[in-house]
């Protein structure tokens, strides 16, 4: 594969044709991409605010990665199955997952929350790299079933260092599994820059396992869409796995617990602000005459409305009940869980009694 970065849209918002890849452009599709990116950004900002207000325990912001996520999200078909990492709120949005579900998880209401089967969107995985093997196994199953669809699995630049990810690359290659490895290289793994993780551009990792790796401008939604679509089609057509390295930038902190001022320069952030994934689409929409100020105002208002709605619903989210501890540990019976559940209930009741007794 070429080591050049696939780009369709420069950071000044100009279209650049690409020899190998293409994407059809229409006012509607471009506006939809813009809309989803704007919504993703707005809800992400809302989540950061909600965390500051104590409504969430933690939030890993996707700020700056909207092109990668919305591009990949738009490439997916209904039969495709996604294994996200923990920062893929944009893809969740494209899949139709209620953002409230994602926030509930970071509120500490559940460790997962949504129904993966409903939108073919698996739960977030926090143990770095684990899900890459799950995705590969799922893809092996798809192939066994002769089912349509492919698997897209998301992970970060840091994750590529984990043995599990290399094992997944190898299993996928050996079994020729219909899986697209979608690495969002946001250049940071918490405080560690790419050179602490790898000596070579990450898409090159695929060469060593025997399938194509390709780098795409991760801040160019059109390129991300086109390349992901291409890779998914390859997978569906039985051509095996692909590694996509979406080269992007984590504009914010690693999570709301993190302080990036300790480890990276303000200039770097400024540099990447000028490569903002939304700005360039906005420029293109304007240049093409496909959207005007009124349109952008409408989008902003819609997003605002969604944010307000999300905030309201989150605040109304009840805590789980203590007895839920024991609810889903096993599918079948487990004597110890039953014993502890009963002891716990009795213990809880003794408190209620004590309270009622006016203690």
């Amino acid at each position: 594969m070429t080591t050049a970065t696939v780009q369709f849209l420069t950071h000044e918002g100009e279209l650049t044709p690409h020899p190998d890849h293409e994407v059809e452009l229409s006012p509607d599709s471009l506006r939809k991409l813009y809309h989803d990116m704007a919504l993703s950004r707005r809800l992400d900002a809302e989540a950061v605010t909600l965390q500051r207000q104590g409504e969430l325990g933690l939030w890993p912001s996707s700020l700056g990665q909207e092109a990668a996520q919305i591009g990949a999200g738009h490439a997916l078909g209904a039969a495709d199955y996604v294994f996200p990492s923990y920062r893929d709120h944009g893809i969740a949005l494209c899949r139709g997952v209620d953002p409230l579900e994602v926030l509930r998880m970071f509120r500490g209401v559940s460790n997962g929350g949504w129904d993966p089967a409903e939108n073919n969107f698996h739960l977030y995985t926090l143990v770095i790299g684990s899900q890459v093997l799950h995705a590969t196994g799922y893809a092996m199953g798809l192939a066994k079933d002769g089912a349509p669809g492919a698997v897209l699995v998301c992970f970060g630049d840091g994750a590529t260092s984990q043995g599990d990810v290399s094992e997944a690359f190898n299993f996928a290659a050996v079994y020729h599994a219909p899986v697209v490895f979608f690495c969002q290289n946001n250049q940071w793994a918490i405080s560690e820059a790419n050179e602490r993780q790898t000596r070579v551009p990450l898409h090159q990792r695929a060469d060593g396992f025997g399938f194509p790796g390709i780098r795409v401008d991760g801040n160019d939604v059109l390129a991300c869409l086109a390349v992901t679509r291409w890779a998914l089609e390859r997978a569906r057509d039985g051509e095996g796995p692909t590694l996509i390295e979406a080269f992007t930038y984590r504009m914010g902190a690693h999570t709301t617990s993190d302080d990036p001022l300790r480890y990276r320069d303000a200039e770097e952030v400024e540099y990447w602000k000028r490569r903002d994934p939304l700005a360039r689409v906005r420029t293109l929409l304007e240049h093409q005459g496909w959207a005007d100020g009124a349109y952008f105002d409408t989008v902003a208002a819609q997003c605002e409305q969604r944010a307000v709605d999300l905030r309201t619903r989150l605040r109304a989210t009840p805590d789980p009940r203590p007895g839920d501890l024991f609810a889903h540990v096993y599918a079948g019976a487990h004597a110890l869980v039953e014993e502890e559940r009963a002891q716990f209930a009795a213990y809880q009741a003794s408190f209620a009694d004590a309270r009622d007794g006016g203690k």
Partner: protein
Amino acid sequence: MTVTTLPMAKAINESLRRALAADAKVVVMGEDVGRLGGVFRVTDGLQKDFGDQRVLDTPLAESGIVGTAIGLALRGYRPVVEIQFDGFVFPAYDQIVTQLAKMRARSLGRIKLPVVIRIPYGGGIGAVEHHSESPEALFAHVAGLKVVTPSNAGDAYWMMQQAVTGDDPVIFFEPKRRYWDKGEVDVDAAPAAVHRAVVARHGSDLTLAAYGPMVKVCLDAADVAAGEGTSVEVLDLRSLSPLDFDTVQASVEKTHRLVTVHEAPVFFGSGAEIAARITERSFYHLEAPVLRVGGYHCPYPPSRLEEAYLPDLDRVLDAVDRALAY
């Protein structure tokens, strides 16, 4: 009733064969399980009969095997994974502990992961390092996993059926030194309810609680003790998570003395949990503290030392004597 006499390895083989035939979603996977039929031949002939889409020789990567098995289970499959030897399960430990065990709870019960992980375990076969260990405590401590281990061919057959058809992940420990011991397998009727301990021998003076490879040692010890006038009850626990404390309690409240026996190190081993819980349940019934026989706090030794390391008849009888001396 269709009873046949089979070595345990062959009983498991027959059980897997039945599972593969009964449900197209059952897949067997692991290192060398296909063409070779596994280093212990437990999967012998399965790839030949069910094809390489059902019985997969995998790359040499335990995390990869369990991780992809989880993915297959998410896609509706029921993978039965073989880990070649006890000491080689640890590269997969992360996938087992953080993913396999927890994903059901994480999904609020929406996801089920019916993955069976078969692990030939235990010593006594004169093997090199890492081939004789008993890591069951490291799995029993982890919520979300079921941990079982048969002691004989009939149980092995049926417990495998229960493991494959159940909807929970099961760590299935196979006592490798009993693979060639023959036993009766009734393919029409399961010998005991799932996750129940059974009384392998009735007695009244003391209870021995064991599982897997040590059940036979305890039965032999009970024989010898009987010759010396001591009536020993032997329990075959069969399952460590859940652990059937009711059966243990009932036995102890009859005999008033309990000795636990396993190959794994005593320190933080199964015997500790059994001792602690039974002492709590049956405090006023115990006439002696629960004594524990097991491995020492050292790495499993080279094979020329394993006789000294492993609990045997004498060590069990020594503990029986000590318990009776109270």
